[in-house]
């Protein structure tokens, strides 16, 4: 199986290094196509006007933000259950990328919300759940940064990732209930646009572009993390031999 074949870090590097330029080119092409379609070809929505163009950033960011946590959860299982050597590296490398997409989702959502619904932020279930996801990302990143030894940090981060994955649907439900228990001061209609093909196509293209961007960056980040651990090992070796 390809995944077990890539368990050896050196083999991973050898396989991934030549692929990265191609992935980068594909990402640039698809994103250019998507942005071009989004900005120029997509028609204005009859309700929202041109601001629907923000959706082409907002929705793919949301999808990728959630996809990334799912991927990290699989990697966490790989660390805890199957003991795959690169699983925790994949998990650690993915976290900042997922956090960035989630942050972009929050920012573009706020910028979309202001002209559409009059406010940058509202404590409704969906926005709050995404905010919690963002906080979970920051928590996992903080955990990685706090424990010195990568292999010890790996197990802790894997457990935190899985707890977060289980907790996300629970949070979604509880935030739904919380929002209906306390009646908000004003009610906002979250009427989304009807998905015409002319709007759907750029959305799908942008989603594919974002996915390619994620894969490219993730592989690059895994590569960086492998190198970082090599540096750390060598520095420890050097310190040990200097102490003799």
């Amino acid at each position, binding site marked *: 199986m390809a995944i077990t074949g890539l368990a050896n870090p*050196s083999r991973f*590097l*050898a396989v991934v290094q030549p692929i990265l330029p191609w992935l980068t080119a594909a990402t640039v092409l698809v994103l250019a196509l998507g*942005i071009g379609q989004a*900005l*120029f070809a997509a028609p*204005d929505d009859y309700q929202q*006007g*041109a*601001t629907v*163009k*923000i959706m082409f*950033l*907002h929705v793919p*960011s949301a999808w990728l933000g959630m996809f990334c946590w799912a991927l990290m959860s699989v990697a966490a299982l790989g660390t805890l259950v199957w003991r795959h050597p690169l699983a925790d590296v994949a998990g650690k490398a993915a976290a*900042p*990328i997922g956090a*960035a997409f989630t*942050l*972009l989702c929050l*920012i*573009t959502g706020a*910028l*979309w919300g*202001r*002209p559409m619904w009059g406010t940058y932020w509202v404590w409704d279930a969906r926005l709050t759940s995404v905010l919690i996801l963002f906080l979970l990302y920051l928590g996992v990143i903080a955990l990685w940064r706090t424990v010195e030894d990568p292999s010890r940090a790996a197990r802790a981060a894997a457990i935190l990732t899985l707890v977060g994955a289980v907790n996300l649907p629970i949070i979604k439900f509880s935030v739904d209930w919380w929002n209906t228990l306390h009646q908000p001061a004003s009610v906002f209609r979250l009427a989304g646009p009807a998905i015409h093909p002319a709007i759907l196509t750029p959305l799908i293209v942008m989603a594919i572009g974002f996915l390619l*961007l994620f894969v490219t*960056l993730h592989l*690059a*980040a895994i*590569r*960086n993390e492998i*190198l*970082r651990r*090599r*540096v750390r*090992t*060598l*520095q420890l*070796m*050097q310190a040990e*031999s200097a102490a003799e």
Partner: protein
Amino acid sequence: MNLGPHAAFIVTAYAAAAIVLGGLIAWIRIDYRLQRRKLADLETRGVTRRSDRATPTFP
């Protein structure tokens, strides 16, 4: 391309995307160069891994 009355928000959203994703890309690239530089530095000082001496990863 007429962006309508809320053009500022649309432009800001795309600019935010450029900054956030651009920053992410930049960080990954800079981190790569940093690790490469540290490895090269350690190598010139003679600190290497056994497998690197046999078959170097980066010639």
